[in-house]
């Protein structure tokens, strides 16, 4: 009998081509996504006079720098326009399929890959973007890499890696109504900290995880990088297979059935051991918001801003003082007393159809007290939301419904939070200046952002959902 293996062990061994004496393994890459920011890697391969080894396994997607408004007018800023056209040229010159600015399937790489059935269980997926961990929701080994590694994948379709340790995060029980995958993710990060999963491949498991839709699992795995994890994953199951059936790039017919048979083996064996175990009670998770400048500065909405004076560790106390000054909030202030200036719903974390439905359930028939932007995760999600009438609900609430892209999560396309302004946001990073120089970000679920919009301050969504269908 072979030793019991974790899901991650199985994914790793399937991709191992060779191993060096020092333990580094050469791994086969099944899917590689590139975006506008990958230009540095194309420069590297040109400088070496090399070609792309397996162009049919790399897919280009325009997302980081694309405009979200008035696309037909083109991109006014020539330096931003050049980012998009450089991707187009690099894709064309290297025979790489591109979901470009004008493509009806365009969207955020971590939304489009799964939506098109390019991301599948059992694959090794990489992209020059840290939120590539998203694709682990399908039981794939998916992680972000830097420009040199992107160039290496382009040239060889392989990567040298050190095997990460294995961590299992079990969320038991059942989450309450109004609690989203984002609340689970932020609760995990608050518990283990922003570097708690450093050096680990994380597998999420437990009844509260199995109950999540694919959209929810993607949100959760997306945020595993904010806990420092090398990757996050959920074992594929009937929910996964039903999501993938009939997706354009997924296997079809009998080939799909055979694939499902193979994918069904992708679970951790019963007696498999992990290097670290973390458990949470799903039933105890409340709606969570962040108040500081790292994602582990997250607390239940009914609590208060921490007081640095009560912190015994002087380094932590100084961090807290600086963070509260940057965020413009005061020790002991109730989180629900924090007034906001704007909202943003979008990003690879929370821009899928289920996220938009959750926000619309709160906003229907209500007005937003602040301006805000809602950017769907892909052009296909946008059309689906419009077919369901969600855009009407958002517009009637006074919010702006725009095209798909990374938009205000990172701001490089020009969608920025002005200096000093406070944004309730469904994104993944509340780092200083992340949404624009001097911007103040509070991370939360789409339903909680909608609640903040309706109230004009951070707010508990649960009372707003009373009597509504969610």
């Amino acid at each position, binding site marked *: 009998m072979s030793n019991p293996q974790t899901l991650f062990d199985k994914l790793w061994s399937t991709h191992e081509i060779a191993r*060096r004496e020092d333990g580094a393994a050469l791994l086969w890459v099944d899917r590689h996504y590139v975006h506008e920011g990958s230009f540095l890697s194309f420069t590297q391969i040109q400088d070496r006079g090399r070609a792309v080894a397996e162009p049919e396994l790399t897919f280009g997607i325009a997302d980081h720098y694309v405009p979200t408004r008035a696309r037909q007018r083109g991109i006014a800023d020539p330096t931003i326009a050049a980012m998009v056209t450089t991707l187009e040229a690099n894709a064309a010159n290297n025979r790489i399929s591109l979901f470009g600015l004008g493509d009806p399937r365009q969207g955020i790489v971590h939304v489009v890959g799964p939506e098109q059935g390019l991301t599948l269980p059992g694959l090794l997926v990489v992209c020059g973007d840290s939120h590539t961990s998203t694709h682990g929701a399908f039981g794939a080994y998916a992680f972000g890499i830097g420009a040199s590694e992107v160039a290496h994948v382009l040239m060889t379709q392989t990567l*040298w890696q050190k095997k990460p340790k294995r961590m299992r995060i079990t969320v038991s029980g059942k989450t309450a109504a109004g609690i989203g995958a984002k609340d689970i993710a932020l609760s995990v990060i608050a518990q283990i900290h922003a570097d708690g999963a450093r050096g680990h491949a994380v597998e999420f498991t437990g009844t509260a995880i199995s109950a999540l839709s694919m959209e929810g699992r993607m949100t959760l795995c997306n945020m595993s990088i904010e806990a*420092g994890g090398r990757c996050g994953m959920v074992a594929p199951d009937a929910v996964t297979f039903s999501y993938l059936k009939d997706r354009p790039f997924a296997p079809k017919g009998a080939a799909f059935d055979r694939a499902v048979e193979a994918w069904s083996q992708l679970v951790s064996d019963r007696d498999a051991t992990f290097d670290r175990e973390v458990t949470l009670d799903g039933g105890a998770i409340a709606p969570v918001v962040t108040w500081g400048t790292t994602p582990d500065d997250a607390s239940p909405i009914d609590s208060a801003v921490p007081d640095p004076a009560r912190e015994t560790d002087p380094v932590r106390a100084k961090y807290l003082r600086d963070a509260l000054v940057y965020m413009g909030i005061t020790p002991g202030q109730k989180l629900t007393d924090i007034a906001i200036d704007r909202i943003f719903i979008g990003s690879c974390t929370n821009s899928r159809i289920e996220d938009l439905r959750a926000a619309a359930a709160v906003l229907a028939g209500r007005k937003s007290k602040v301006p805000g932007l809602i950017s769907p995760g892909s052009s296909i999600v946008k059309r689906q939301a419009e077919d369901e009438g969600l855009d009407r609900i958002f517009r009637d609430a006074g919010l702006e419904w725009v095209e798909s892209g990374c938009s205000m999560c990172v701001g490089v396309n020009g969608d920025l939070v002005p200096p000093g302004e406070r944004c309730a946001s469904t994104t993944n990073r509340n780092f200083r200046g992340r949404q624009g120089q001097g911007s103040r970000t509070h991370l939360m679920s789409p339903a909680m952002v909608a609640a903040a919009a309706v109230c004009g301050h951070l707010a508990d969504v649960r009372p707003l959902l009373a009597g509504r269908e969610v």
Partner: protein
Amino acid sequence: MEKFVRLTAIACPLPIANVDTDQIMPARYLKLPRSPELGRVLLNDLRRDADGNEKPDFPLNQPVWRDAKILVAGRNFGGGSSREAAVYALYEAGFRCVIAPSFGDIFAQNAVKNGFLAAVVAEADAAELGALIAADPDMPVTVDLEQQAITRGNRSFAFTIDPISRNQLLNGWDDVDLTESHRDHIAAFKAADRERRPWAQPALK
């Protein structure tokens, strides 16, 4: 790739935890190609005020640390975004080594690929080393990768790094050249894998 074996240089303290790659290299500069300009925007928004003027009390702006090649930072340095330009910015600003209690995984990986050392020390050692160099900035620090030791005067600290990264830095190995030597293994893997996992191919061309 450039080797890293041993470095003796001025070290600059940056006693802040969670300096993420958005701080090291703000997103609005990510359109820039690799050039010395990246060194000028290193840690820009911590280093300069909203008008672009240098904050005189920020360590990197102090004359004694202008030529530092070693940075002594807080826990979780380089977490967040995978942007390799964060390493380029440090490199272009003259740095070749960051010493910290922990690093973001992707940052640490990117560092190695650029011959740049990310040395992990105990939290207390980072604090002590930072305090020592703040008290007497002119005394150089030696980082020895073979010995995995950091020496300043008669004080010495051990550091850790995973053996794979250490090997690559000491030898200056180029990943692509290494991979080329496995060309036959890759071809054999690819052929066998297509039989074993036919579903792994994209269904549409």
